[in-house]
């Protein structure tokens, strides 16, 4: 699927590019590049618009939590323990008497940081390994594919727990900071990106314009970064968008298991884990962070779906 995208895009670029002499102004009206086409297509999709608005909202909350609540998330009063939602505290109070709404707002930042950084790191590592393997082939590819397969053989969640179990604070208690969680999830999660990238690069490598660049004496790095990389990066972006949501879910799962980010740091996973221990005395401290988590994951998956559909000419 992705290969046809790449080639179509490549063709579109060649036709549009400055290499083609001719009446450019007249032509560029008609032949837009696939990227432009895809973008015009995207902004007309309700799913894209909904997810984009949601993601913008979530990013704003993560960046400026104080805009949305004036209550200190760590100012807890046992007097309010397990009080339900009310006018003063929209999401009610948890067992410790902390404001659930304020905690949910402030917890956004850690979840989003983990999602964005992990995905960015995986994108770089997986992308690089995929490009090198796909472009050079032969023993480079054999070696890199072997490493990818080895990491794939390990159960993801399990490997993450094994690594995170080693992060301790001074008292020897399990306590991993945000960065430890980011690095761990990157180590166990870069492989699918590498595979997608490798496949895309192997297709693009055979395109005529790469052969043309080679015969014009372009250096390896120029072919790789100017020609192959830009034309094979779309499927990677799609996988990254979808996996961003999955990473946020994985962070919450780790916190839920009592590993990863720990209190007093706030994240949705930490909140859910705490609420789950008191589940019999009230559901609201569990439901609100779970709801936010679900909406965030949903938004990123929807965005990824919409982008993929827009860039896949087969589905038009």
């Amino acid at each position, binding site marked *: 699927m992705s290969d046809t995208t790449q080639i179509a895009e490549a063709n579109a670029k060649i036709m549009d590019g400055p290499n083609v002499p001719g009446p450019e102004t007249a032509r560029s009206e008609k032949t837009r590049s696939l990227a432009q086409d895809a973008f015009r297509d995207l902004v007309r999709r309700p799913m894209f618009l909904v997810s984009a608005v949601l993601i913008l909202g979530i990013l704003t909350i993560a960046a400026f939590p104080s805009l949305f609540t004036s209550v200190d998330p760590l100012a807890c009063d046992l007097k309010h323990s397990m009080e339900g939602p009310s006018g003063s505290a929209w999401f009610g109070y948890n067992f410790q008497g902390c404001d659930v709404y304020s905690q949910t707002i402030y917890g956004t930042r850690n979840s989003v940081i983990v999602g964005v950084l992990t995905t960015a790191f995986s994108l770089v590592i997986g992308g690089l390994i995929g490009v090198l393997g796909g472009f050079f082939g032969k023993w480079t590819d054999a070696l890199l594919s*072997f490493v990818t*397969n080895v990491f794939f053989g*390990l*159960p993801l*969640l*399990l490997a993450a727990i094994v690594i995170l*179990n080693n992060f301790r604070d001074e008292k020897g208690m399990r306590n991993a900071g945000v960065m430890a969680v980011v690095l761990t999830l990157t180590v166990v999660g870069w492989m699918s990106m590498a595979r997608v990238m490798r496949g895309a690069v192997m297709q693009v490598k055979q395109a005529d314009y790469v052969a043309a660049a080679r015969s014009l004496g372009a250096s390896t790095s120029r072919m790789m970064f100017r020609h192959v990389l830009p034309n094979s990066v779309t499927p990677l972006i799609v996988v990254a968008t979808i996996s961003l949501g999955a990473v946020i879910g994985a962070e919450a799962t780790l916190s*839920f298991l009592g590993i990863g980010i720990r209190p007093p740091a706030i994240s949705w996973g930490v909140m859910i884990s705490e609420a*789950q221990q008191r589940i019999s005395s009230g559901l609201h401290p569990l439901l609100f962070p779970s709801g936010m988590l679900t909406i965030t994951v949903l938004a990123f998956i929807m965005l990824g779906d919409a982008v993929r559909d827009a860039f896949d000419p087969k589905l038009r």
Partner: protein
Amino acid sequence: MGRYVIRRLLQMIPVFFGATLLIFLMVNVMGDPIAGLCGDRQCDPATAARLKKEFGLDKPVWQQYLTYMGNVFTGDFGTAFNGQEVTELMGNAFPVTIRLTIVAILFEIVIGISLGVLTGLRRGRPVDTGVLLLTLVVISVPTFVTGLLAQLLLGVKWGWIKPSVSSAATFDELILPGLVLASVSLAYVTRLTRTSIAENKRADYVRTAVAKGLPRRRVITRHLLRNSLIPVVTFIGTDVGALMGGAIVTERIFNIHGVGYQLYQGILRQNTQTVVGFVTVLVLVFLVANLLVDLLYAVLDPRIRYA
């Protein structure tokens, strides 16, 4: 066919050793393998040194790995810190997890494929849109939220099922945990089947089958579905490995004493023998499942032949 299987088995060998070496390094080098032996306190240096010598931990890591693998191939997975043989723990844990996985896979096949066929044949209709949105939501809700809510509502509030699974873990007790475990994959199976069916619906062989006057039912089951199942089978096959190892969350919520539970306990208590042993078996399961998937291709699509 036979040659293909042998070639694939040979290719599996380096991956198997690579993956087990990786987990061995993670557990033994990053962690402290004797930390679990002195309870919650730190071992005093003299005891630590003696224990290290006793278990051969003073030797280089590659030598430890070779010794361990040598023992594994003679059926000796070592002893957990409480004196139980790891093989004994496996004997108790694996049947439970295998039952749980069977329940989950059955849900994926029965519900997932049925919904996929239903929506794939009615692409763009309200049923299709509804199910598609539903799968998106199911994928987005983390398993532990689904599990906790299902347990609380069905088990505690309404009393339809027992909220926690007994140590026998019979099939009927595992229905709800199996559904929870399967939920996300179920949604993916639905979407994959839907796309595949919708794509193949316009294929020439389907038109031929219809033109021959075959009943609609036969066209769908024998021609359309069979040809659309390859991506679905790939997904379910790789999912077997993932479900066996990834049941940590589900097993924890429903208190099922299976592989996930043992592994989680093993990791938290720094019980290195248990962790490495279980993961070794899981890696094997994962590799064999992948091989079986490739062999199933030839059954589903006779055009695929393995020389």
